[in-house]
């Protein structure tokens, strides 16, 4: 499976993502610049964390108009897995590929720690290697991770089972403790925690690895089984 790791000016988790899928999973990965025009040869798209465009105006507000975003929208429409982590999640909400928005943490502090996450939907292409209801440990590092959406949107998220991860305890003020959501179709996931930072025992656990394994497993079942 071939992943594109999108690089915006100010991305800083792109190397970790590349390492996770290339070195830990042994899949193909390539960096793709924000001003690139074609993603058709990739099977999965990864939007890394960081501070694209210095978080100027709002996190992700400027990145969402990057040339590559049109291609990401195409990939999403084609049903390819699109994963946005941290700043990547913020970009996906700004672009309207995911509902809601990320506000400043309720205590106005940047929070860097390992968080407990509950897997609230193990029935997605991103979470099939987890058990529903299980608690996993994934690092978070964000100043604007306080997920917000209006009541109507929240109802829809619940109805369609789009809430995929919730925090085991509230620390940033997110509505209903939401840490990660998918789009209605289920092929675009945005999450504030960093699974790419939990891919080896040496760095504090491997709970994040199963997320990437889930994506690869789903892709192989859909594409390789028939080969």
């Amino acid at each position, binding site marked *: 499976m071939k992943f594109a790791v999108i690089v915006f000016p100010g991305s800083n988790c792109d190397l970790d993502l590349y390492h996770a899928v290339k070195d830990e999973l042994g899949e193909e990965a390539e960096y793709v610049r924000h001003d690139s025009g074609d993603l058709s040869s990739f099977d999965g798209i990864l939007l890394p964390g960081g501070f694209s465009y210095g978080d100027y105006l709002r996190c992700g*507000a400027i990145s969402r108009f990057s040339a590559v975003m049109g291609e990401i929208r195409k990939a999403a429409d084609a049903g390819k897995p699109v994963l946005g982590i941290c700043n990547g999640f913020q970009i996906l909400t700004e672009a309207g590929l995911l509902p809601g*928005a990320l506000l400043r943490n*309720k205590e106005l502090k940047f929070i860097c720690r390992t968080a407990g996450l509950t897997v609230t939907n193990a029935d997605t292409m991103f979470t099939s290697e987890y058990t529903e209801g299980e608690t996993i440990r994934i690092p978070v590092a964000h100043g604007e991770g306080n997920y917000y959406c209006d009541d109507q949107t929240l109802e829809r998220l619940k109805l369609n089972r789009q809430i995929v991860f919730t925090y085991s305890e509230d620390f940033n003020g997110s509505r209903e403790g939401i840490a990660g959501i998918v789009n209605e179709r289920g092929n675009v996931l945005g999450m504030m925690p960093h699974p790419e930072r939990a891919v080896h025992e040496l760095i504090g656990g491997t709970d994040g690895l199963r997320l990437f394994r889930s994506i690869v497993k789903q892709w192989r079942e859909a594409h390789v089984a028939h080969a």
Partner: protein
Amino acid sequence: MKKVKIYVTLRESVLDPQGAAVQGSLHKLGYSEVADVRIGKYMELLIDPDGRDPETAVKEMCEKLLTNTVIEDYRFEVEEAVAQ
């Protein structure tokens, strides 16, 4: 030339922790009459209208890029720019 002043605040339904902290601080200073504080952003644009109605253009800019209407409200004023 037109000068556009844009005011952006968090929507009423969105908690503004910064505003709440500042309100608390004002109360401590004895300004008990302050009932609410909302902190926002102020932007100034200088526009050279090129046939396009600046009101319409600025509204578009606000909806597309300058604000996120999921969480923010905005209002703006268009005035004649005074030559420096």
